[in-house]
């Protein structure tokens, strides 16, 4: 009798600790510091609230992974983290399920950033950063000065990708932030940007391929002037101090969450996206990495400490001179831009 009692007690204890049926959801992030930040601030608390069992996968190249899963018919992830222009590309290739705006609040995103397929949750700036040992109190202040190799000698490091760079190239050529996409949409606009990049090419010592690499180049002093993402520059600055950066002329992009076409737990994925992007949670993300929320509500009620606002690309005081990356332009012209970029690199 006592044995039976013990067994049933154990059974009850176990069933109380582990719910008999826990909805499981798989999320794919970029990993690293960024992936951890998303876990701590966003999906882990949301999963706890919903009682979901969330598994994490990491991929440095979300779009390639998404495409592989969907085209192979073996979708293992329910939520995928993409850059917004990648999200738009994925949507154009019908790799994503439409977002369920009955579950996700449609008014939580400013109209300009809204997408039917990939929910934008945070933003970053592509910024100019420099070695403070090389330039002291007189670093270049604009992209035009970044291009001025006579006045600011030093080795440059740029990303080996046309994204954000062609916008920056036009800014350096005297195009006003508001005119960047109108100029790029003219037949000679792209050519003008590429020519500008070609002009600085001899002074580029490294064309980097990952954010982590750009941070390392800054830290090692391998390059004096680096175009990188604000979160990376901020991390290096906080670590070593020999680095600084400016939001002036930054290109602001957003990252988004999408649900792959044919995801095994579609509805739960929508619910998790809604829960993990609550204002308090995306505000909390800035505790870990300097990527600011897209949802305006997250900037209200002191959710983000005032002194931290300065480190976010989207902070009102930082926004005046920046360009918002235009996902539509990139979906339409991305391939042509990348091809022109590769050919420039090849010359």
């Amino acid at each position, binding site marked *: 009798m006592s044995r039976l009692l013990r067994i049933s007690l154990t059974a009850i204890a176990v069933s109380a600790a582990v719910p008999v049926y826990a909805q499981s959801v798989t999320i794919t992030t970029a990993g690293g510091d960024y992936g951890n930040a998303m876990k701590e601030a966003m999906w882990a608390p949301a999963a706890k609230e919903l009682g979901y069992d969330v598994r994490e996968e990491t991929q440095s190249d979300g*779009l390639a992974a998404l*495409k592989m899963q969907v085209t192979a018919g073996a979708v293992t992830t329910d939520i995928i983290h993409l850059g917004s222009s990648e999200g738009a590309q994925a949507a154009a*290739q019908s790799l994503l399920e439409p977002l369920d705006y009955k579950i996700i609040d449609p008014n939580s995103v400013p109209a300009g950033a809204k997408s039917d397929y990939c929910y934008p949750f945070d933003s970053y700036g592509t910024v100019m950063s420099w070695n403070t040992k090389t330039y002291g109190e007189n670093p270049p202040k604009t992209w035009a000065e970044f291009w001025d190799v006579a006045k600011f000698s030093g080795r440059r490091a740029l990303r080996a990708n046309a994204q954000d760079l062609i916008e920056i190239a036009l800014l350096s050529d005297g195009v006003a932030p508001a005119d960047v996409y109108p100029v790029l949409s003219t037949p000679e606009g792209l050519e003008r940007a590429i020519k500008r990049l070609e002009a600085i090419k001899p002074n580029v010592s490294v*064309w980097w391929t990952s954010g982590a690499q750009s941070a390392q180049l800054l830290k*090692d002093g391998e390059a004096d002037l680096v175009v990188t993402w604000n979160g990376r520059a901020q991390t290096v600055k906080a670590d070593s101090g020999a680095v600084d950066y400016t939001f002036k002329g930054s290109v602001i992009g957003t990252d988004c969450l999408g649900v792959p076409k044919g995801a095994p737990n579609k509805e739960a994925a929508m619910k998790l996206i809604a829960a993990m992007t609550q204002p308090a949670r995306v505000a909390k993300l800035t505790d870990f990495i300097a990527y600011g929320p897209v949802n305006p509500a997250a900037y209200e009620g002191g959710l983000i400490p005032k002194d931290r606002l300065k480190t976010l690309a989207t902070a009102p005081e930082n926004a005046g001179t920046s360009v918002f990356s235009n996902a539509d332009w990139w979906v339409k012209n991305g*391939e042509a831009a990348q091809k022109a970029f590769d050919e420039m*690199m090849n010359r």
Partner: protein
Amino acid sequence: MTVTAVDPGLAADARRERRFFLALSLPALFIVGLAAMLPILWIIRQSFLTTGGEYTVGNYEKVLSSGLTWSALITTVELSLGTLAVCILLGTPLALALASARPRMANLLMAFVMLPLWTSILVRTYGWLVLLRREGLVNAALTGSGLTAEPLPLVYNFTGTLIGMIHYMLPLFLLPVYAAMRDIDANLVRAAASMGATLGQVIRTVVLPLSAGGIFSGSTIVFIYTIGFFITPAVLGGGKVNPLSIRIERTLSTFQDWGSASVLGILLLVLMALIGVMFLAARRLMARNKVGAAHA
């Protein structure tokens, strides 16, 4: 054929034996078929598909008419040939030194040669980054000693990539060359020397011809390996060295163009097959010449 009459029982035995040995290779063939042939067939199919999944030859037109493909091909061959040339120049004398050293010394030296082979390629590649970068150890030594006023651009370019690749390939080149040189009958060398050959003549007329097979195998290994190198140019090339492997990665990640990436993969495969055939033909030619020389 000199054997004219064979006992039928013996012949049956021989057949059985051959069948048995063939059967032994089946598991390996199965694995190769599954792990190598199937994916290659899949890649060939992929190279004929549009993004929408329809059959097309458009991928081939696109890739073969692009200047980017051909410059990547040239970079690939330049890197491979460069690595091979330096491996032959450095590796052959080293193998000769190893083969003529006393056994204990040779073993010790061999351990030093093999040591890098036991280290992950990523670790070694990043190691070179630490050594060669602007504020790295080599440049610190060069500028510190006054040999150069400015740090030299040793990495994030073709030079750095080549250094990394040579470092990886040298032991693999050395092994067959060393084996061939060690197997040379020492009496031949003595005989040559006793007839008044100088050291240079001994090397030229005895050692090198007899170790040509080893040098040849080593060269084949170097070429086949380096054709597909990705990590080294990706880390040490600084985005400026773009062989076919990097072109494939970029086609996949930036353009999500699986069809074109597959075509590039096939191009790499064809390149490798061509080189393989060339090496085999050259080897057969060499073997025939040797036989001819022996008969003469």
